[in-house]
């Protein structure tokens, strides 16, 4: 009697439930079956993967439905689909990174990093393709352009963004002006980058005559994109500065502006710095605004206030769209991917720096 209840109770816990290894069994079966079906229609990795995924999801759902019931089956179907979404989202990321590494690494050399495209013509590229001479020309001018334009954009947008954020948090009283600024900063985040470029082009076109294209115009265009990001992140950081700090400062008789510059901002500086870095990372890869504001150059130009300039993104764009030598485009393609690798490294580095800054200089809160 006792034995019977015991064994019955034990079986009741696992009754109607699939053992854990079921998933792996179904997965194995699906992979094998998919290989067979895929071989029938002409084998390829892509079709194999697709068939395997479909068979697995269908098979596992049906097995669950028959053993555990409809609700559990819906639940497991949802689980597989959600996992599938994530894996699917990883595909383009891996593909992009792999492509850039595979095609970009061969192009990275001392020459690529420290020479410009000045004097590199189609004939040079043809020579490289036919006689195997090294691919000449590099992205030095574009790197300089990128750094210069981004630097100027940062110089313009950081003070404006910082002060505006301070106004919103420290001085704003929730009146219509504050709400308008908050709302339009949010809206500004969504301005298409090409429209920002057109704005700068139109502004300088009116002021200095049509067709004015310099690095500085591009910097203004990038600032339009950068300011809202700086305001947003600074605002978030100022919000989390505890009010006690401000009140303690006021209690000592310190002026409001001294409180802000000496107490509030130093407390929030790590977050602000990392927000600014992320904003730089965002605009450094912009292509469209540069295209319409800074033109395109193949020689080094250190002066942002006169002459056309190249940046890494526009360099990539033009190397792909209009190869230096129309007959042997391999040299241009190689330069484009090498520049893409360089650009991605820059952006990743900035992102990493932002995270490190946020972590290292984080204010020491209560001990």
């Amino acid at each position: 009697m006792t034995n019977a209840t015991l064994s019955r109770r034990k079986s009741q816990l696992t009754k109607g439930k699939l053992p854990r290894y079921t998933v792996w069994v179904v997965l194995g079966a699906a992979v094998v079956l998919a290989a067979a079906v895929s071989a029938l229609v002409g084998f390829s990795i892509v079709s194999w993967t697709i068939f395997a995924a479909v068979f697995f999801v269908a098979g596992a759902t049906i097995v669950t439905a028959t053993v555990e019931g409809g609700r559990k089956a819906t639940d497991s179907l949802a689980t597989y689909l959600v996992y599938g979404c994530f894996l699917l989202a990883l595909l383009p990321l891996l593909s992009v990174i792999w492509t850039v590494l595979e095609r970009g690494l061969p192009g990275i050399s001392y020459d690529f990093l420290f020479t410009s495209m000045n004097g590199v013509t189609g004939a040079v590229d043809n020579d490289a393709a036919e006689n195997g001479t090294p691919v000449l020309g590099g992205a030095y001018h574009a790197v300089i352009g990128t750094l210069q334009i981004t630097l100027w954009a940062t110089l313009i947008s950081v003070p404006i963004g910082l002060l505006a954020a301070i106004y919103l948090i420290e001085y704003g009283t929730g009146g219509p002006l504050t709400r308008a600024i908050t709302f339009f900063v949010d809206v500004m985040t969504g301005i298409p980058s090409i429209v920002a470029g057109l704005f700068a082009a139109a502004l300088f076109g009116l002021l200095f005559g049509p067709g004015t294209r310099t690095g500085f115009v591009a910097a203004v265009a990038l600032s339009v994109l950068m300011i809202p990001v700086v305001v947003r992140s600074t605002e978030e950081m100022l919000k989390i500065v505890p009010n006690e700090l401000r009140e303690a400062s006021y209690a000592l008789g310190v002026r409001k502006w001294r409180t802000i510059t000496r107490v509030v901002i130093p407390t929030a500086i790590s977050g602000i710095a990392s927000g600014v870095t992320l904003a730089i990372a965002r605009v450094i890869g912009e292509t469209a605004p540069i295209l319409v504001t800074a033109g395109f150059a193949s020689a080094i130009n250190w002066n942002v206030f006169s002459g056309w300039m190249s940046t890494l993104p526009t360099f990539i764009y033009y190397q792909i769209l209009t190869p230096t030598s129309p007959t042997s485009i391999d040299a241009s393609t190689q330069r484009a991917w090498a520049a893409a690798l360089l650009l991605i490294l820059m952006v990743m580095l900035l992102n990493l720096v932002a995270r490190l800054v946020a972590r290292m200089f984080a204010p020491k809160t209560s001990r």
Partner: protein
Amino acid sequence: MSTNSLTSTGRAGDSGDKIFSGATLAAGGLILAVLFSVAVFLLIQALPTFSADPAEITGGEGFGSYILPIVIGTVIAATIALLIATPLGIGVALFISHYAPRRLAQVFGYVIDLLAAIPSVVYGAWGYAVLAPQLALAYAWLAENLGWIPIFEGPASQTGRTMLTAGIVLAVMVLPIITSLSREIFLQTPNLHEEAALAMGATRWEMIRMAVLPFARPGIVSAAMLGLGRALGETMAVALVLSGGALDASLIRSGNQTIAAEIALNFPEAFGLRLSELIAAGLVLFVITLAVNMIARWIISRHKEFSGAN
């Protein structure tokens, strides 16, 4: 002496206060002025187009018939992107917020955020060099087997540089936006709601459907709208991937064009009236994205008031 210095420093500090608050106010006002002047300067530069003889506009039939096809093209590209990215983004966000092991969830979040860190021109190059040739095979199959549906009408593009490819690349680009915003909202779901659902015997999916999704619906809508705004204005991916042309119902043939790509491709060589035309096109794009973004922000702000009551 001491009273003197007290009053004098007081005055100095006072002016410091005034200067500083004035500067912050000016910066805030400047932002409003910039947004306003974006519209004004674009309008000024675009004016010649609106007053020009219709025959002089590209296409020869006036600005309306020039802009309409590329507006439709822009909407098609953004729609494809959104149709792919919204369900996928919600799935990824759910994975990170509710399915992934807790320890790994944050890492997975960073990984998906990496998608946002890749510059758009690199996506364009990738779509042009890697994705398009792959998809060309799929398009040939689609044209052969589903060619009776207008959007898959053949002959399929040999290079794969079509609207559908551009839409897919755009989907990859807006995915991180939709994912990160929905993830934030999913994580804000009141724990008590979730636990209550689970305590009633709901499965994980039922809990998500009954507690998480209804709570997050406005957030998802606004995330999709912000993604839409990005997809509408995205330039480089389309400019590089799409081999543009006249408006075409089939998504697997070359043809169609978006406003942003049209501007980027033609602006460097444009002058005179053509320049003004492109700026007018930019103005149209600006108005469209502004409307989309304002609606999205409005939904978010309305939701904020609601969630405050919870």
